[in-house]
């Protein structure tokens, strides 16, 4: 029986967290958010230098749980770059034997995820490859040259989306719709987005708690006031138990348990709702300062909205989970 993080896993999270703290502080986020790019080469290279690209290759000794732990930290830091797409592209390429796994593992080739049926992808202008994961049509890997990209002003400034149009037969089929790997990749994407949401929700909770401990009103730290204290307790109650939901979904995927698809749907639905609730609560807990652009909470608020909408809404995945349960 082991259902908590190993020291190695904590060390990986620590390393990613430290790297992002150095390379992706709030000043960098501000600059990126006000720029026109949808990709940040320096932070990407720093992450890739940690060797994260290959986590989902068969021989890595790691798995979706480890990938989720990294995506959690990326969510915490509101990191730029198509990390989820890259990780899944490596998994798809490695499992199919097609494509250039090495260039993807090292991060010199950048891949982004296109959810089947969606017109959007993050970091699309920087991407060399588009990994289309479509439960109905299978998995394709498409070179950037075959895609039409329409830049838009993105609401989520940390992970800007573009509009993407890709012809049905572009690129190369890695897996058919019937191949179990298609569903597995789609499920893995859900878990990784749930992990991003978990990290973000934890981050804004920590910001709120930290602020409540320091900030004084009426001669008291505001965190002493019962109403705010209980609001913060509820934020933590929303986030902390949900952490194990992400762990379980990733573990079930790695262990190929029968309930893995359902666990992925539940994790995506639940964590994205948690993230939205928590960022809203965080702004309220901060008061005026939380509403300023400068303070930065808005980046997570907007990312929460993007995580929620990406790959299908909570209601959609709850409906799937209900069907998968045979209700």
């Amino acid at each position, binding site marked *: 029986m082991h259902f908590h993080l190993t020291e190695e896993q904590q060390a990986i999270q620590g390393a990613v967290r430290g790297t992002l703290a150095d390379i992706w502080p709030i000043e960098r986020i501000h600059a990126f958010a006000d720029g026109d790019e949808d990709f940040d080469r320096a932070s990407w290279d720093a992450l890739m230098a940690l060797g994260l690209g290959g986590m989902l290759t068969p021989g890595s000794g790691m798995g979706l749980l480890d990938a989720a732990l990294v995506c959690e930290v990326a969510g915490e830091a509101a990191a730029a770059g198509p990390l989820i797409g890259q990780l899944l592209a490596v998994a798809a390429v490695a499992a199919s034997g097609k494509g250039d796994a090495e260039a993807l593992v090292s991060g010199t080739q950048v891949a982004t995820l296109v959810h089947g049926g969606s017109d*959007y992808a993050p970091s699309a202008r920087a991407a060399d490859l588009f990994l289309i994961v479509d439960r109905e049509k299978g998995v394709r890997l498409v070179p950037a040259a075959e895609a039409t990209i329409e830049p838009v002003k993105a609401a*989520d400034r940390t992970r800007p989306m573009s509009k993407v149009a890709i012809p049905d037969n572009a690129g190369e089929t890695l897996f058919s719709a019937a191949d179990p790997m298609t569903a597995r990749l789609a499920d893995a994407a859900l878990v990784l987005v749930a992990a991003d949401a978990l990290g973000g929700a934890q981050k804004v909770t920590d910001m709120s708690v930290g602020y409540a401990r320091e900030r004084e*009103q009426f*001669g008291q730290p505001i965190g002493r*006031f019962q109403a705010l204290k209980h609001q913060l307790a509820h934020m933590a109650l929303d986030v902390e138990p949900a952490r194990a939901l992400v762990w379980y979904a990733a573990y079930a995927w790695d262990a190929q348990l029968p309930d893995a698809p359902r666990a992925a749907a539940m994790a995506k639905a639940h964590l994205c709702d948690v993230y*939205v609730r928590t960022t809203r609560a965080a702004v*309220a807990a901060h008061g005026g300062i939380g509403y*300023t*652009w400068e303070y930065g909470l808005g980046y997570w608020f907007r990312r929460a*909205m993007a995580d929620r909408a990406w790959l299908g809404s909570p209601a959609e995945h709850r409906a799937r989970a209900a069907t998968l349960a045979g209700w």
Partner: protein
Amino acid sequence: MDLSYGAAAEAFRAEVRAFLSLHWPPPSDMRGADLKAFIRTFRALATGEGYLYRAIPKIYGGSEQPVDVIKAQVIREEFARARAPMEVGGNGMNMTVPTLIEKGTEEQKELFIQKTVEGDYIWGQGYSEPGSGSDLASVRTKGELSADGTKWIINGQKIWTSQGMQSTHMFMLVRTEPHAPKHDGITYLLIDLDQPGVTRRPIRQMTGEKGDHTFCEFFFDNAETPVSWQVGERGQGWTVSRTTLKHERASIGGADGLGKQFAKLVDLAKEVGRIDDPIVRDKLAQIEGSVLSHRYSSFRIFSCAAAGEDAGPVTLMMKLLLTEIGHEMALLAQELIGEHGFLEPAGAGGRGNRGRRGPEKWLDQIMGSLGNSIAGGASNIQRNIIGERGLGLPRDLAMGGER
């Protein structure tokens, strides 16, 4: 119960309409300074008829009318229908003028009221400071008398001043007796913002807004104002700042805005093809239960006001109810817009015409619903008010010093 306003009101409505058809709108090709002058004349005429500035004494440019919430409502409705300009709005009319009428010197009334009524003076509110939050009495901006005793020298910072970029003047709280008890050391001052000691900076909000109409921060670096511009006694500023406009405040306008926004939410559900989804229908009807509660309660408050009766605690609840409905609408809107939410709407957070916008325009409401709960006093303060003033529960110990 009867939702009609009665025969007298309808007769009055005919009068107002007749006036409006005579004096509004301006010629369709009128622009710029001409239009401005036309509007100024129109307001003067409307004031002459007793339609505008009803709470303001005639000597300061008002029409000095007896309280009549039905007439006031009819005026609002007819002016809105004709798209005619009502009173100049903002902090000046809502706060400076009532305060001066009640607590100002003759000199102050003469100097400021008419100019404010006519829109020449635009007032910023100088209450909040960085870190003060709901604890408005924790003023740290300092006021010191000049050596000759004729001027206040002001140093410090104010924040969250709406219309800050447009403001010509500010009413502000400054700490003038650093050693007095918290609420007793504050003085209420008026100040001309056009002077070297004053710097202003717009605050960019998470909505993306950073335009002319946003909130501002003000920095005071040896800014000056004459002692004669002090309102009320030195050290009594906290009490002075509690003066508020009570005249004909009841209105059923607020609820209409909410109803319109709800109708747009229904339209959104149709636009994105989700109106037949039972979950969406149920949620919409749930929200509408609150929307209608708000709407009919505004009828009730208005009706009580018209009859000179007190509607009771429900009046304390309207703002928080609005905030909570805004949250619910935001969450449903977010579900409905789906991937449209990836897009930043054109002119996000700003005002005025921003061109054609798709479902992503709801981003403004989704974020704005949070701003509402912050701007006008945090929701927790509203809950305290309902609990203490509405339900008679004892005051919070930690806030015991507030009045």
